[in-house]
Every structure is written in C-alpha cells, then in structure tokens.
C-alpha cells in the first residue's frame, strides 16, 4: 500500500505539427519523495510539466494518480486530481490582491498564512496587489498557495532561481519537510547543489524520452551529466578537430566591446570583446540573460547599465536601425520573429533595403534581383516554394533570415540559436557559412543551445550563468561535458575525463 506510486506517467508523448516535443517520457513518483526532473535544454522537461499540470493535452501516454486514471485536461482538473504546479513565471494575477488570488484558486487562507510564515515572509498585507509584491516574494507566495491546498504532488519549476539566498534556504527546508508528510514533490532545477541536498531520486530526459532514473547519492552529478548528454561524445571529438583546423587565428581588431552590461534582472554584469574574423560562442542554460544580451546588442532593448563600444566608439542603440547602421544584424532563433511569413523569399531578403525613408520609392528591380539571387545562391536556398516563406522548411527559413543580412552585407551577425529545430544538412551549411564569414574578416556572436556546435563553429566559448560571464573556454577544451559543467556553474577542473563520459553506458531505460 505504501509503495503504490503517487503519480505514474508512462509513454507520454506530445507533438507540435511535425515536431515531437516529447516522444516517450515516463515518471514515477513514490509517496513522500522529492524527485528531480532533469534534462538539457529542449529535452522536454517543460512539455512534461505542462502536460502533468493540464496546461496542454498529451497525444499519447497514461497518467495515473494514486493508481487511478484521472482527467487532467485543464489546469482546474489537474488541481482537483491533486497536481499543483508552481511555475517559473509566477501565476498570481498581477491586478488582483493576494486574497483574491487565493479565492480564485479556492485556497484556504489560514493554511496559507501559516505557510508564508514558515517560508519566511513575515509582513505581508493580503490586500496588496500581486503586482506590487516583489517578484521573488511572488514566487514564494505561489509556493505557499500550493502548499496550502495540501496537494498529493507539487511541481516546482526552477523554484529557487532568482530567490535571494535566505529565502531559497527556507524554501528548500519547507519542501524537504513537506515530503515527510507522505506527499511528493517534482523538483526541476539546474542547480546540482540543491538537487543533491533535497532530492531522493532523479528522472533524466533526453530528446523527449526518459533515459534514466537514478538515486541521488554523492558523486551522482557525473552520471546525470552523462545521461543528459548521451553516448555521442566520442564521435563529436573526431568531427570537431576538422572544423577547428580551418579556423583562422583570431588577431582581428576589436569589433564590439561589451563592458559590465546590465539589462533588467536577468543580465547582471557581462563583459567581453568580439573581434573581427571571429566566431564567439555564447553558452548558457535557458534564461540566464542571453536573450537580453542579444536584444541589447541588436538595439531592441536599452541596457540599464554598462557600455557597448563598436569599433572603439561608445554607442547607444534606441532602435534596431541604429545597430544595423553600425553593421550589426540580429538573426533570432525563432524564425517567426524575423520573417514576414506570408511574403516571398525575395521580399524577405530585400526587406532591410526598403527600411529607410529614402528607399520607399520604386524598387530597382534589376539590382535587387542580382543581390537577392547571389544571396540565395550563396546559401543554397531551396526556392521551389518561394512564394510564401511559411511554406519553406525550417532550415530554408533560417537560411532566408541569414541571407537577408548577407545581402545587406552586415559586418557582424548576432546569431541566436540559429540551428534550433532544423535538419542536419542545413546545420552543416550554416556552420560552413559562419566560418566563411569569419574568414572574410566578419564577426559572429553565436549563441547555441546545442553544445556540440561550439567546437564545430566557434573560436571560443563565453559561458553565462546567472546573468554573469562565469568562464571563457578556448575552443580546444570546450567540449560538451566541459561546457555543460561550466553552464551549470560547476568549476572547470572537472573530476571525470571525457573518455570515461564517452563510454557507452548501460540501461538507458527507466529503472524500476
């Protein structure tokens, strides 16, 4: 009776169109345990959490709560089934006071008061609007609200991120004690320290499938990293050697100098140089401030502090056009952000040409044809379906976003995860292209969520964690394990050698 799992999810799958976000995830939760859910960026953690909390429906799979199949197809129903989430973004309604927020979720007030005291938020007026409560406290309130309904299963998504240390400690303490009452917690975190201190077991996802369930014990970090990466490290080593041989030694002049850049709460303090003729990699876990960094460099948002210098001159961008005039172009990872999807390939590539007022007049067709055509050829864009960009494959769409700036002859490309969700062939072409550009003396800042790309493309890797540069790795040692450790804030002199990590490991299936 006591061993019956509180939550038992098997074979959960979710597709978005042609993309499988989750292929075969399983998760079993024993009563009274704190269970870590881990996986690299894009492994499917957040999709699984959304399914378990009723935010999106699964396409396949079986989810049992206390041995019974329950309807969890809406957040309200998931709550009734005893699954209560605390999301990374607080889900308090900003314009309602705290009390109304409690009423909205039918949370009893007295237990809530008890829990906020336990969590270390002594003086809170329940009549305060949620939006006036500091963000960190909001997250704690969200947690207290979940605790107050005494759910069977609580899902904590990056609970301690952005919490001050004293609050985080209290939170972890409360979560730990919560598990002693026989209820369970699913704990999602990038911080090994917390997981080691708090969790009993961990389920590791890779590419949308559960690849292992491990007991948390000292020294388990290496095993988890290994599971997250899979047995593909050795092959990469061979390929990357070839790519880096072609890399020109970086001795160009400084193109962009970033000093103590600060944007909002996410990007704290970042400094680095980007030189002509270099591809500099940026590596970070999700939400470490890289989005803000790229947006600030592209002129989309204004930094709150620090300086950006271009070719030795300080700049203040107020609109992307300011960055473009300096030859800095931004290639977002989400292609729907950069492309006018219903327009043709040609119109998309030529879009920057018409931007300025002086270019609003008749289009010089022939000149444009030549420029656009040469960009299309250079990137080998498949133009069979060029009437509307939305009909191109993802890889070709991404090529269009880059071709636009090749045609506009930008000197610096800010590529934000440009190979996300595109096919292998196109990825190779993009790598080659970026190296070519660097060979011509252009510079590229390249954020990637696929760590093996760093050694294929970059000259060095700038690692950001918690809004700060924590390490700059020369390309020779910037392999996947090293980058993963660095991205998780672990120190560079790792215990295990790459050779060991690369060895094929047994039992990728979930252990009982």
């Amino acid at each position, binding site marked *: 009776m006591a061993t019956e799992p509180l939550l038992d999810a098997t074979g959960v799958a979710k597709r978005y169109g042609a993309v499988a976000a989750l292929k075969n995830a399983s998760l079993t939760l024993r009563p009274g345990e704190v269970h870590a859910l881990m996986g690299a960026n894009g492994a499917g953690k957040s999709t699984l959490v959304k399914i378990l909390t009723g935010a999106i429906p699964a396409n396949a799979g079986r989810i049992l709560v206390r041995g019974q199949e329950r309807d969890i197809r809406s957040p309200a129903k998931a709550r009734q089934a005893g699954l209560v989430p605390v999301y990374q973004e607080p889900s308090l309604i900003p314009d309602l006071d705290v009390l109304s927020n409690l009423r909205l979720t039918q949370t009893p007030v007295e237990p809530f008061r008890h829990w906020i005291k336990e969590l270390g938020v002594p003086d809170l007026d329940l009549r305060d609007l949620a939006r006036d409560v500091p963000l960190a406290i909001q997250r704690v309130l969200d947690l207290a609200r979940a605790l107050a309904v005494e759910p069977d299963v609580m899902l904590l998504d990056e609970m301690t991120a952005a919490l001050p240390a004293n609050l985080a400690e209290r939170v972890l303490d409360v979560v730990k004690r919560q598990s002693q009452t026989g209820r369970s917690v699913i704990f999602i975190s990038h911080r090994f320290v917390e997981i080691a201190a708090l969790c009993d077991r961990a389920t590791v996802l890779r590419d949308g499938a559960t690849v292992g369930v491990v007991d948390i014990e000292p020294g388990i970090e290496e095993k988890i990293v290994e599971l997250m990466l899979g047995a593909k490290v050795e092959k990469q080593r061979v390929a990357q050697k070839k790519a880096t041989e072609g890399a020109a030694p970086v001795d160009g002049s400084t193109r962009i100098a970033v000093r103590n850049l600060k944007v909002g709460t996410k990007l704290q303090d970042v400094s680095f140089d980007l030189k002509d003729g270099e591809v500099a990699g940026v590596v970070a876990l999700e939400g470490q401030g890289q989005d803000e960094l790229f947006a600030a460099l*592209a002129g*989309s948002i204004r930094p709150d502090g620090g300086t950006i210098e271009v070719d030795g001159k300080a700049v203040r961008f107020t609109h992307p056009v300011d960055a473009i005039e300096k030859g800095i172009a931004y290639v977002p990872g989400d292609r729907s*952000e950069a492309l*006018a999807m219903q327009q043709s390939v040609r119109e998309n590539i030529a*879009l920057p040409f018409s931007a*300025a007022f002086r270019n*609003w007049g008749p289009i010089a067709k022939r000149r444009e044809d030549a420029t656009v055509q040469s960009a299309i050829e250079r990137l080998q864009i*498949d133009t069979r379906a060029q009437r509307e960009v939305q*009909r191109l494959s993802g890889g070709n769409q991404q090529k269009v976003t880059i071709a636009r700036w090749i045609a506009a002859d930008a000197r610096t490309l800010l590529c934000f995860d440009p190979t996300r969700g595109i096919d292998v*062939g196109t990825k190779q072409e993009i790598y080659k292209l970026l190296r070519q550009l660097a060979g011509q003396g252009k510079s590229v800042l390249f954020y990637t969520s696929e760590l093996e790309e760093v050694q294929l493309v970059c000259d060095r890797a700038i690692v950001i964690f918690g809004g700060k540069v924590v390490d700059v790795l020369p390309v020779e040692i910037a392999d996947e394990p090293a980058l993963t450790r660095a991205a998780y804030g672990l120190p560079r002199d790792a215990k295990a050698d790459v050779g060991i990590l690369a060895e094929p490991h047994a039992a990728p299936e979930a252990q009982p």
Partner: protein
Amino acid sequence: MSISATTPEQAPLGRRIKRFMSDYPLVPLIILLVLLVLVLNIIQPGILNQRWVGNTIKFAIPLALMAGCQTMTMLTGGIDLSVGTAATMAAFIVATQGAIHDPATAMLMALVPALCIGFVNGIGVGVFRVHPLIMTLGTSLIGVGCLQVYQRTVIASGAKVPDFLIWLGTGVTWGFPNALLLFIPVAALLIFIQKRTGFGRLLYAIGDNERATRLAGVKYWQVILALYMFSSLLAGVMGLLYMGLIRAPSLSLAEPLVLTSVAAAVIGGTSIFGGRGSYTGTIVGALILQVMITLLTVLQMPEGARRMLFGAIILAVTAAYLRIIDDK
C-alpha cells in the same frame, strides 16, 4: 526529412484548396462575380445591357476608391473608418468653395482637411499606438463636428459643384464612364505602390510581422503616418468624384459607403490581419458588392438586411482567412 519544401501534389485536398485560394484569390472572386450577374439576369431577365453595366461601373468606382483606403491600411493590420468623413469633407468643401473660387483652387482646398485627418490618424496609430479602429472613429467624429461648424459659415454663399467633377462623375464617353479616366490611373498607382515600391513592401511586411520589420530597421511610425495620410488623401479624391456623381452636397454624403468599403476589401481577399491582399482583388470585390446591392434591391431587401449581410460577410470571410493563415 530532406530539405525539400512540400509541393502541392503531396498535400491533402483540403490543404491544396486552401493554397490555391491563397495563391489565386482572384479566380474564385471572378467566378462569384459571374455567378451573381447570372443570378441577377435570371431573376430580372434583360437587365444585362450596356447601360446597366455602365451604371454599375460608375457606382462601383467610388466604392472601389474608398475600398482602396481600406486595402492599404488593412495591409498593415489596420483599418480606416475616417474615410467617410474625409471624403464628405472634401466633397462638401469643393461644392461650397466652388461657388467662390475657381474649380482647381476649390479642389485643392478640399483636400487639405482630408490630409489633416490622415495626419492625426497617423500620429495616433503610429506614435501613440491607439488601435486604428478607435483612432479613425474618433477623428471622424471630430471631422463631422468641424464640418457642421463650417456649414454654418458658408450657408449663405450657396453651393456649386465644378462642372469638371460632374463631367467626370456622371459623363459617359463611347459607352465608358468618364470616371474611368480618374480610376484607371489611380488603380494603377495603387497596384504599383503595392507591388513595386519599397513603401508597399513595408506595408505588407508590417502587417505580416511588425516585430520582424523592426528588427530589419523599419521605423513603424514613419510608415504608418505616411500610410494614413495617403489613405485620407485618396478618400478626399474619392469625395470629389462622388460629389460629381451625386451632385447634392450633404453632411453624410460618403458615410454609407464606409461599411461597404470595408466589406469590399475583405471580400477582395485583403486580410484584416494584414500582410495579405491586393488592390486587384478589391476592385473585383467592389464590383461584386455593387452587383449584390442591385440584387438586394431587385429582391426588395430592406437596408437592414443589407447591413446584417455585410456584417456577416466580414466576420465569415475574416474567420475563413484566419484558417488559411494558420496553414503551416
């Protein structure tokens, strides 16, 4: 998993129809137009003659001009409901000033307030980001107020519509309405702007993905300001022509055409969400509506039924386009 894009042959039938509709929106429109004319001819045999065709075109032209304003603004995801007021102001001023000044001066004077309305619209939508619908509705209120004040100042001087406008509005040469002399160049200009100028390209791009245009260095407010001024100017020109056609100045001259012009643009394949559409489609849309109006008149449908029908058309067509855009 190759790099190829899906070709129509591989797609299921429903999707192929969707693609065909979005690639060649003119084909079903023209079929619809022909069908409507045939139905009309069945209900009222013998109505199809040169006179009727000439009249239909004559009345479709002002509608098509006003629908041009909607097409242009809708390309950016906007709408311009102040065109009725802009057109009425131009018409009323040309008729009253025509009694005092020479026709050319009167016409120039008539276009100034239209431009002002466009300017205010552009500032409101482009800089303050008021929803275009609310903004243009507001300026049209102010415009009507101004017109009423103006009316009282000129009440004594009487009105005279310049002969040139009457010739243009009502005249027929070799079976063709003279209004075509104005309409064909204007339509050509609109189509040229949409297809062959940087400005036109920006309109489509902004309506499609404003964020992307920003990242490409486009300043939104500049485009929007120019757009709404252009739209009002076009409405003013339309007002002049319409004055020549109707010949009786009134304070609500062009107002009834506003709703119809929105419907014409929507039927003509311009997406109210922006990024999609062409003036060619709008012209056919205006013709379809003109024929439909005749049809409803022949069937003795009351004005109320007409409005309900137009409202339903706008909603149904918009919902249908939403499905086409979702095609991914």
